[in-house]
Every structure is written in C-alpha cells, then in structure tokens.
C-alpha cells in the first residue's frame, strides 16, 4: 500500500520535529559508522598480514643443515650435516609433501655481457622452486625438467641483473658469461614482496657439473599439503625422521637440521586474527546494540509526545492500524536514511584510507610490506547490519505505537 498521503503525513511530522528526527537518525548513523570503521580496520589488518605471507607460498617449508649437538650411534656431537641430491628425493617421498627443490647457493658469481659485468648470487635449483617462492616470471620461462636432465647451460636472471647487464636491449636468447662460462638467458624473474631482484637461477644439475658442486645441496625448499596445524606438524616430524635416518642423527637434534615451516606460522597468525575479528565483532555488536537502544528510547518518547495527536486522529476516525503504520513508517524512514548515511560515510572513510595508502605506499601491494591492506567491509555484512538496525527501529516503534493505538481515544485526548 504505497500512498503519497502517508508519506506527506510523515514528512510533515519530520519537518515539524527536526531535533527529534536528528537524534534518532544520529544514533543509527553513528552505530553503523562505527561498525564499518571497526570491521574495516580489522579486515585491513588481517588482509595486510595475509598478503605478507602470500609473498611465498603459504605452505612453504625450508630446511637447512647445521652441526649435530647430540652424540648419536657412537658418533660425537659437532658433526656437520651435508645435504646431497638424494635428500631431495627422500623428502619428496614423504607423504604430504607437495613439490620440492634443492638449492645450492653460489655467492659472488661474476656475470658479464659485452662490457657490462657484476657480481650476483646464483641459486641453483629444481623447477619446483618457482612454486615454493611464488616467483614471478616477467619474460620467457623458468628452469624446466629438461634443463635438469640434459644439464643445459641456461639461466633465469633477476630483473635487476638484466637491467644492469642489458640496459634496455633484449636479454632473452642472449648468452651471459657466468664465471667465464656462457649461459643462455631463458627468463627474467621478480620475487614478490622484495625490492631487490639480484638473484639468478640455474639448473642444479648443470651447476653441480660445471662448478664442481658434485652432488651437494645447501638447503631444501618445499611445499606441504596440510590443512591444520597438527597435520603440518606431523609432516614436519616425518621429514625430520627421514632425514635423521639418512644422515644418522638423533631426530630430536634441533642443531643438525633447521626447519622453517611457514604454514605453521601462518596458521598461528591467522588464529590470532580470528580472535581479533571476534573481538571486533563483539565491539561492533555492542555499538549496534547501543544504537538500537538509542532508537528505541527515542521512539518511546516520540509516541509519548504524540499521544494527544493519536487521540485526535482516533476521534475523527483513524483505525489503530493506521496509527501504528504512521508511527512505524516514520521510524523506518528515519532509520533507513540515517543508516544509509552511516554506511556511506563509514565505507567512504575506509575507502579513502585505502586509497591514500595505495598512493603513499608506492604502487601495488606486491611491493613493500604493509600491515594494512584493503580495509573494506564485506558489502553483505554492511547491508545486513543496516537492515538489522532498521528492523530494530521498527520493533522499537511498534511496541509503544501499538500501546498508544490501543488506549481509548478519550484517555489519549486527556493527555497533556
């Protein structure tokens, strides 16, 4: 029943009672505004931290070697552990391991092309390293399986190396001398979340052959398939046991091999954020309740104030339903408009914060670390909470309106 008359009645009342309307509207708008700010900040913090983790695969794990600290099977402590190619195969066989790569670092390798030259770090690896470190390939390709099998002399250059050696000319397909051995450039890469891209990647098999690395590896990088902290810890345990068996050290020896499980850190951090989110929701709901109480309070006063008017209307033929409708529609109209204003201001402010952060942060979230990212609120949540307030306002208006409509007109008329 859309009736222009009803709205004209309501608008006339609102115009007549500006202060009352403002107070009702303000408590609603403020509640929604605060909720948007709180949820937006929570999301921003959570998104920012999650994005930092995403620089590498979230489920990445790195294993490096050390010296034994516990005597084991008749061998003294202090014995160095050295990874070899077969260790990568052993780790790969552990159930729950996704992809894995060995890594062999060659520091200060000299790269030269024509007259340009420089010293950079060479990482020798398997093709799977790309997945573990989320490497971005700008041009060409990464190391592949055939490179490993045929021990091809190919190299993927970090974008900074490419710029230093080749300037603006094309590097793909050219040959660079690495410690005076020519390697073909097959790709240009960027590391996410890093401002320095001064690492070059070459097949581990080629490097071991040419630079007399025999079959040694410095460390292992891999991904694991685990959903929970417990699963990931179980996989970690298995890897440690297999390597301990291979290298004959006590599985409890923390010094023999080092292990960083990113998933574990990620899961723990996300748990903290879940707690923060719950906390934010509690505050947010508290704010909403304060808004609802405010609206209810004002509606009670409104109905009290209008008792005499209701009496007059009833005396000249208003039915109880029309009286209730009049008061409730007014309440709904005010809360809807005010809720919308709060919503627009709240999300608007968070968008502004987001915008200014992107501007000052110097570009994409790929670069530079930020703990605050995309601090915006899920549209559905925003709309749902506004609807909640509107419904609350309607109920808050309904109860006293119902009571006012049911008192006898003569009693209402006597009210001064």
């Amino acid at each position, binding site marked *: 029943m859309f009736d222009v008359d009803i709205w004209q009645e309501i608008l006339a009342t609102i115009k007549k009672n500006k202060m009352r309307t403002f107070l009702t509207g303000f408590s609603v708008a403020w509640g929604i505004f605060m909720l948007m700010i709180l949820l937006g900040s929570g999301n921003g913090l959570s998104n920012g931290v999650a994005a930092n983790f995403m620089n590498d695969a979230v489920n990445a794990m790195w294993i490096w070697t050390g010296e034994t600290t516990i005597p084991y099977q008749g061998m003294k402590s202090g014995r160095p552990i050295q990874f070899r190619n077969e260790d990568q195969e052993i780790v790969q066989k552990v159930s729950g391991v996704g992809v894995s790569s060995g890594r062999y670092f060659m520091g200060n390798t000299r790269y030269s092309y024509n007259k340009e030259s420089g010293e950079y770090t060479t990482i020798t690896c398997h093709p799977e390293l790309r997945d573990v470190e989320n490497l971005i390939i700008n041009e060409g390709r990464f190391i592949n399986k055939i490179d490993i099998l045929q021990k091809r002399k190919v190299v993927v250059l970090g974008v900074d190396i490419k710029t230093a050696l080749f300037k603006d000319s094309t590097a793909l397909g050219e040959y660079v001398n690495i410690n005076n051995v020519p390697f073909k450039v097959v790709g240009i890469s960027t590391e996410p979340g890093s401002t320095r891209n001064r690492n070059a990647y070459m097949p581990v098999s080629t490097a071991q052959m040419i630079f007399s690395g025999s079959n040694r590896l410095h460390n292992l990088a891999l991904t694991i398939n685990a959903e929970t902290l417990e699963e990931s810890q179980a996989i970690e345990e298995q890897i440690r046991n297999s390597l301990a068996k291979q290298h004959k050290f006590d599985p409890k020896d923390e010094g023999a091999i080092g292990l960083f499980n990113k998933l574990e850190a990620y899961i723990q951090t996300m748990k903290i954020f879940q707690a923060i989110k719950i906390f934010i929701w509690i505050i947010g709901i508290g704010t909403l309740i304060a808004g609802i109480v405010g609206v209810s309070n004002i509606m009670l006063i409104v109905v009290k104030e209008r008792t005499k008017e209701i009496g*007059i209307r009833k005396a*000249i033929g208003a039915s109880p339903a029309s009286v209730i409708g009049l008061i409730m529609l007014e309440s709904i109209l005010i809360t809807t408009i005010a809720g919308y204003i709060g919503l627009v201001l709240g999300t608007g402010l968070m968008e502004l914060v987001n915008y200014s952060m992107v501007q000052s942060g110097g570009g994409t979230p790929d670069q530079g670390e930020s703990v605050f990212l995309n601090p915006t609120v899920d549209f559905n949540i925003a709309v749902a909470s506004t609807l909640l307030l509107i419904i609350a306002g309607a109920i808050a208006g309904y109860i006293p309106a119902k009571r006012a409509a049911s008192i006898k007109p003569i009693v209402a008329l006597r009210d001064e």
Partner: protein
Amino acid sequence: MIRLNNIHKSYVMGNSSLHVLKGIDLHIEQGDFVSIMGSSGSGKSTLLNILGMLDNYDNGSYHLSGNLIANMSEKKAAKLRNELVGFVFQSFNLISFKNAMENVALPLYYKGVPRKTRNLIAMEYLEKLGLKDWANHMPNEMSGGQKQRVAIARALISKPKIILADEPTGALDSTTSYEVMDILREINDDGITVIIVTHEHDIAAMTSQIIRLNDGRIHEIIRNGELKQFQKSYIHGLETA
C-alpha cells in the same frame, strides 16, 4: 437515532471504584438540538464520550442509528465514528503542525478520499464558516473562535449524523460563544443532531432540549413550555446584565 437503556459506567482508580453513570435512559431523535447540563462530576462528559464511542460503558445498551454499540473492535468503532459522529472539543484539539485546511481535511483522509479532492472540500467548508482566508494558517496563528470554527468545519466535513460538542464555548468569550452557537444552530437546521455538554445556562438555553444530570442520573429533561420559562429567565437575565 440514539437510544440508551440503563447505562452504567464506573472508573476504577486503584482500589476504589467511582460509579459515574448510575442508569441512564435516554432517547434522542434525529434533528434534535440537545444540551447536557450538570454540576462538575455529574457525569455529563462521560455520557458524551459514551455517545461518541470514545469510551465504553459497563452495563446497559446503546443503539446508535440501529447499531448496538458494544464490544466492537477499535477498527469498527473508528469507522462508525468517522461515518456518524463529528466532535467539537473545548480545547479545539487541532493538530498543531497542520494548517487549517489540512486539519479540516483529515477525517476525509481516513475515509480514503484523494488529497486534491479532500482539500477542495475542506476549502468549501472553511468558506462556509468564513475562514477561507485563513486556510493556510497554523492553529497557533488563529484566535480561539477561529480555531473552534476550524474544529466545527472538521466535524462537519465527513457529513456526520450527530455533532457532539464538549463545552464548545468553554474557552471562548461570550460574543464568540454566541457566534459558535449560531453556527451550531444552523447545522442543526440542516437536520444534523447536535448534542452539547455545557455548564453555562445561557448556552443551554439556546438549545431545544436540556438534559440535567445529577450524580450520575437524569435529574430532569427540560423542553417545550418549561424550556420557554428556562430561556426567559436566562436569556433575559443576560441581556439585562
């Protein structure tokens, strides 16, 4: 038109109960011009409120235009009030944030008459009561007499069969009171039953039937010859004063 049989009404106030109407039997015909008199607390306003369906009664029966008025829903009562009864109050009871025309048009709003039509009709009634130029004024910009005329226009607009007026001249000076009474007289001449509650003898003397209440009972009904006597004493007394 109006038939009351042994109407009783008490108000419960905390523990004590106040028996206001103690058996009223009354018969009012269509087109009567009746005043209800009585001292304060005699139940005259209560009687009017029951007649106007603004209040309910405890015992007895009340027939209005052939309808038994008892235990009806608020919705039905509202509809009957809208169709049959027009109210005029001592304190005018205009809605303060509506202008004269909107106040007059309000009963038609509850009848579902479109806005333009009802505003036109409201203007007609305001013109009849000599308030055409005041149509866009708010109640607080008008004098008491003007406000009461707006209230009468509002009572008339739904073409009721009965006008119920509770001390319609109570807040007005005597000149304005007589003007208002003249208007009510004219309304009565058109065939509408007018019932007023008053405690002023000169006002009552202008009606064609006076019902005196005393302590919740009808004390006497003055009409015809007795009424002439009543009128002589009060209207004369006032003129000489």
